[in-house]
Every structure is written in C-alpha cells, then in structure tokens.
C-alpha cells in the first residue's frame, strides 16, 4: 500500500480519535436536555391560570422530570407532556398536574395473552399508580388551589405490533382524578374500586378511542423497587 495512503488513513484515524469525545459530548449534552423537554412550554398554555401554574412550579416539575429521567430509564416522559393541562371534555379551566409516560418494554408472551383491559389494568397498576404517588408527593404543587387534580397517561406498545413490516401501535390509558380522591386512595382510605369509579379515564388503541374499560387496580411495587442491573444513574442523581 502506498505510503501516502497510509499517511492519509493515519491522519483520518487521528482526527476521529481527536474529535469523537467532542461529538460524544455534544450528543450527551443534547440528551441531557431531555428532562427539560418533558415540560410543557409556557407559551402553549391558553389561559393565565395555567401559565401562572407553569411559571410557579417550573423548578419542581423539572426536578420531577429529572428523577424519572435519571432513575427510571425504562420510562420516558413524552416531550411537553409534563404540566398542567385540562381534560378535553371539561368545559371549565380545571387544571391537572399531569404526566404522560411511555413504558419501554419488550414483547412478552404472557402480557400479550392478556385481554386489552387487563393489559391496561396491569400497566396502570404497575406504573400509573406509582406516578400518581410521586406526583402527590409534590405537596407544594398539589396543594396549589389552582390544581384541581392529578392526571397520568400511560402508553405502551401493543403486543404483536412490533413485527417487521408492521406499524407499531401504542395502547394508552389516560386518567384524571380529583386531588382528594387521589390522596385518599394513596393513603388507603379509599378502596381501589371506589377510586376507579370516581376517576375519569379512557383507553386508546393507537389513535382509536376504546373508551372506559373495566379497570382493575391492585398493589404493584415494581416501579418503586425495580433496579436495572448494570445501570449507572448520572452523577449527582438522587434516586429513591
């Protein structure tokens, strides 16, 4: 091989070695912005009440987003879907502290065999309730008189839709509940059945509204106790 070709190759390799940390650093920086991306931009809110809530509690929501991002990498908060939206069917301006998460999970044959409403029950019990608990713990936010309740939206891949050549589909459960019911349920003063009867929720199959399904809620500590093997949270992350 001619010497100049070797020289050029050597130079390219050196350039790659020199610049790759920079490129990696830039990539990391872009990903590091993810927790902030989860917050709904203030300019998107349509009422002063909502804008005020978003301004007042921005730092707390950012901390909340960082905790999910750093400590629960199997979850993903949809960009702009952590904030204070109102329920679509609600004509007033009742604002809910709301988080929309996507659960990263592989195809699982047992999960795939479950009827759709059972899958919704399982995902809400496992992830939705824990999200409600974590949001309820933001007492300064929840105690704000302009916050009417809590909302959690959980999306996951519909089993069997990830095969090659198919378009993947997410199933989504969106739930809204008033503050008092949420607090009573989490403190076990209200039974799961009563919580379900008071909550307003809908299941979606892709973009299609399935509606209110027979939701069952049970104890599932997975999300609060699971530790991903070999996973190192970013330095400084406070994971509980």
């Amino acid at each position, binding site marked *: 091989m001619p010497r100049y070709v070797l020289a050029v190759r050597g130079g390219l390799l050196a350039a790659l070695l020199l610049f790759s940390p920079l490129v990696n650093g830039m990539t990391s920086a872009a990903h590091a912005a993810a927790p902030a991306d989860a917050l709904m931009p203030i300019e998107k809110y349509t009422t002063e009440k909502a804008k005020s809530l978003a301004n007042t509690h921005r730092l707390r929501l950012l901390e909340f987003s960082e905790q999910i991002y750093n400590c629960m990498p199997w979850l*993903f908060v949809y960009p702009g879907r952590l904030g204070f939206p109102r329920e679509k069917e609600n004509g007033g301006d009742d604002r809910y502290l709301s988080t929309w998460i996507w659960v*990263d999970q592989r195809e699982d044959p047992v999960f795939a*065999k479950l*009827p759709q409403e059972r899958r919704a029950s399982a995902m809400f019990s496992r992830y939705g309730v824990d999200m409600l608990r974590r949001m309820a713990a933001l007492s300064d936010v929840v105690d704000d008189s302009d916050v009417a309740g809590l909302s959690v939206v959980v999306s996951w891949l519909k089993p069997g839709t990830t095969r090659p050549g198919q*378009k993947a589909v997410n199933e989504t459960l969106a739930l809204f509940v008033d503050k008092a019911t949420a607090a009573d349920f989490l403190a076990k003063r209200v039974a799961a059945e009563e919580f379900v009867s008071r909550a307003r929720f809908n299941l979606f199959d892709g973009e299609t509204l399935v509606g209110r399904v027979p939701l069952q809620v049970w104890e599932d500590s997975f999300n609060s106790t*699971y530790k*991903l093997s070999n*996973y190192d949270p970013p330095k400084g992350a406070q994971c509980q």
Partner: protein
Amino acid sequence: MRAWLSLASFLGGIVLLTSACATSEEWSEWRGHTTHFASGTHGMFSMRNNKDGSNPRVARTDVDAARAENWWGKAITVSPEQIFQN
C-alpha cells in the same frame, strides 16, 4: 351421547381458555418482579449484558442512543388533543 358432547365441550373450553389467556401461574409470574419485562430498552441491555459476558455498565445516554435508533417514537399513538386541552 349428550353426556359425551357436554364433556367434549367442557374439555374444549378448558383448552381454549388455557391457550388463549395467560394461566394464573404465568400471570403471577408477570406480576412478580420479572426482569424481562421492564428491560430498560428493547434488546440493548440483554445484548450488552449477555452476549459477551462482560456485563459493561450502562449509562443514561446509552438508553437515549438506543431509543434514538429504534422505532419507539414512530408507533401510532393517540394525539394529545384527544386527551387534553392546553
């Protein structure tokens, strides 16, 4: 004859139920802390942890990179406007 038909339908029903739905044993396994369920990301962790046996550490940025290369964001999903008003 009728008794045989009833028995056959009963057994057929059991076969159908156990094949179409998760058995209670499978269900309880799922409800337990299964590591295969919440994997962190599709295939990435099992690939990194199991194939070469070296169990390298996984950082948050690895999860982002794996997701960026995957299809998660392309799945058909309900639009926020079907759920919320801003």
